[in-house]
């Protein structure tokens, strides 16, 4: 019963809250969509913290998503022992980068009174959860090695079953506690997205790659 709640109901609820909530917030309060950067108040630690964090967590997240969506490609990508070894190494380096980055950001927020002044309760929750999430991820990486290999036979079928609306929690219920915590924190973070600054993820300014430098807009637009 608990397993059904945790690995079937909770993921669906979290995804629904995350997606619907973010869209709702975008439609009703787009003004609040920002990264709420605090670089203006503190620049030195921000560089190391934010850069390490983002350069670590972005590829890691993308690799996770790739593991869910294109498992065959990912399996082929570490088909030989050498490749597996390499991806294991890369994953650990990225994870450590993210952990150190999050640690610096947490330390910076705790020690700078200016940053503390503009930190909301939800900021503390999010930053702590992100730190914990990466921490548990690294525990998995170090304590249960060759994650690249076992990932696509445990997490992937579970996520696929959720996506196909034929939930099969048995793929993950037997896994050790660290795995379960990692999964659940992931979904919790997703659910918290519309209630936190995490919404800035969906505003990644891709269109800057091709838009013209100058923008001119007519306020007066003849519609009728």
């Amino acid at each position: 019963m608990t397993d059904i709640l945790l690995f079937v109901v909770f993921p669906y609820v979290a995804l629904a809250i995350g997606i619907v909530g973010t869209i709702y917030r975008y439609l009703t309060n787009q003004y609040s969509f920002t990264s709420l950067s605090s670089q203006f108040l503190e620049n030195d630690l921000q560089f190391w913290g934010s850069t390490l964090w983002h350069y670590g967590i972005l590829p890691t997240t993308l690799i996770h998503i790739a593991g869910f969506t294109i498992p065959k490609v990912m399996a082929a990508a570490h088909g030989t022992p050498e490749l597996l070894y390499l991806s294991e190494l890369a994953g650990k380096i990225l994870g450590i980068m993210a952990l150190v980055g999050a640690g610096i950001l947490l330390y910076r927020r705790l020690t700078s009174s200016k940053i503390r002044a503009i930190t909301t309760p939800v900021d503390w929750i999010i930053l702590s959860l992100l730190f914990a999430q990466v921490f548990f991820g690294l525990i998995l990486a170090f304590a249960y090695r060759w994650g690249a290999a076992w990932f696509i036979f445990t997490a992937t079928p579970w996520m696929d079953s959720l996506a196909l609306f034929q939930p099969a929690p048995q793929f993950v219920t037997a896994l050790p506690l660290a795995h379960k915590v990692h999964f659940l924190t992931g979904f919790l973070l997703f659910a918290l997205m519309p209630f936190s600054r995490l919404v800035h993820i969906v505003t990644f300014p891709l269109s800057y790659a091709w838009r013209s430098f100058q923008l001119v807009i007519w306020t007066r637009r003849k519609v009728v």
Partner: protein
Amino acid sequence: MKVKSQVSMVFHLDKCIGCHTCSIACKNIWTDRPGAEYMWWNNVETKPGVGFPTQWEDQEKYHGGWELEDKPKNPQLKLKLQNRLQTFANLFSNPAMPTMDDYYEPWTYNYNDLFNSPLGPDQPTARPISRVDGNPIDIKAGPNWDDDLGGSNIYAVKDPLLADMNPEDRQRLFSIEQLFYFYMPRICNHCLNAACVGACPSGAIYKRAEDGVVLINQDKCRGWRMCVSACPYKKTYYNWSTGKSEKCILCYPRLETGQAPACFHSCVGRIRYLGVLLYDADQIPDALKVPDEQLVERQREMILDPFDPKVVAAAKESGVPDGVIAAAQNSPVYRYVKEWELALPLHPEYRTLPMLFYVPPLLPVLNATQENGTQRVETDLFSSLEKARVPVRYMSRTLSAGNDELVIKAYRKMIAVRIYKRHETVGDVTAEEAKAALEKAGMGAEEAEAIYRLTSIPTYQERFVIPPYSREGDIEEVYDPQQRKAETGFGRRQAPQRGL
């Protein structure tokens, strides 16, 4: 020819008394909010001086503006800050971001100390406390921290523009008897090739096509802060509380209702002029690629004569309303910038095509005091640029990308107008002297009279020629009033509150 109109500005520095009324008018209306206390959309700097933020003119430090690619064949314009790929790479930590230390930490005073301090032999004092975290602070900098400190060996000496002046001139700026400084009010230049617009990853900054006002869409801004670094004038500011960038909006709600912007309206010295310029947008790409010393002349070429029938026809074809064309014909800015060539853009070498122009300051006139401290008015006071204290090199570095000729030309005209009017009103200057001065400046008596009138005794309506906006008409054309009746009104009604 693609004719566009731009609401443009002239600041007559010879008339600025450095009273900061403009700054206060602006602050009271727009930036008296948490996170915006440190912002001065309008500020007045003492020059030579470090400016606000500190040494903003040092683009090796701040990487603002555009530069031409360093290659002989067909060089393209690029942001000094970064290319598109670097924009993505630097998204998480902006490499050239000025921090609060480059401006100042806003503060208030703990006034309760005055009431609550215990009885004692000393007067109670109100301690300064930070407006960011509420902790007591030692004030190390503030708005106009180097106000009136031209010639200061602590502040003015750090002016980035002094570097390429010859040692003799530089020395002159720091000796008490010959010291020269002036006030430079600055607002957003509402550039034609704005670097802030070019650098914004979200595409939130745009130029209004009707009047050329550059605005930041607060809903689209995601706080990546690239505009703050890219603007060479440092006239976009990051609001640390709301996580959005903000800048001067040229009081567009006032403009749309026919009022001059607050800083213009409140100007005590009446140094400010506002009017429409028609320009040829097709010429922009070429105008940006000429060598530094030709930039001002090329920009003047772009500005079109609103009386030329061909220009008027082209303007109508490009969708410029008749009222705006009429406003362009009355524009005081057109006269100062194009007709008289008295006003020059601030730092054209940043290649943003700024549309705020400055008439260079002439005062104080004398180079040095004579023996026993007196001069003969008619021969010395208005006689020549050579005797003036103005360091032409400094002015040309500020206003014409190093082209001394343009500054000298403007000065000659200003001096000639003085001599001419002195002859006319006081009579201690002979007609020959006046004529010679006019000839040297290359203008006639009529032009001198016109310059005098618009400089010294202009009316409100002559200083501010605001084009008709007819916003109410636009709204009616776009929306059915019956449909809008039951709604909240004009757009969002939400307070700009910090998101989670």
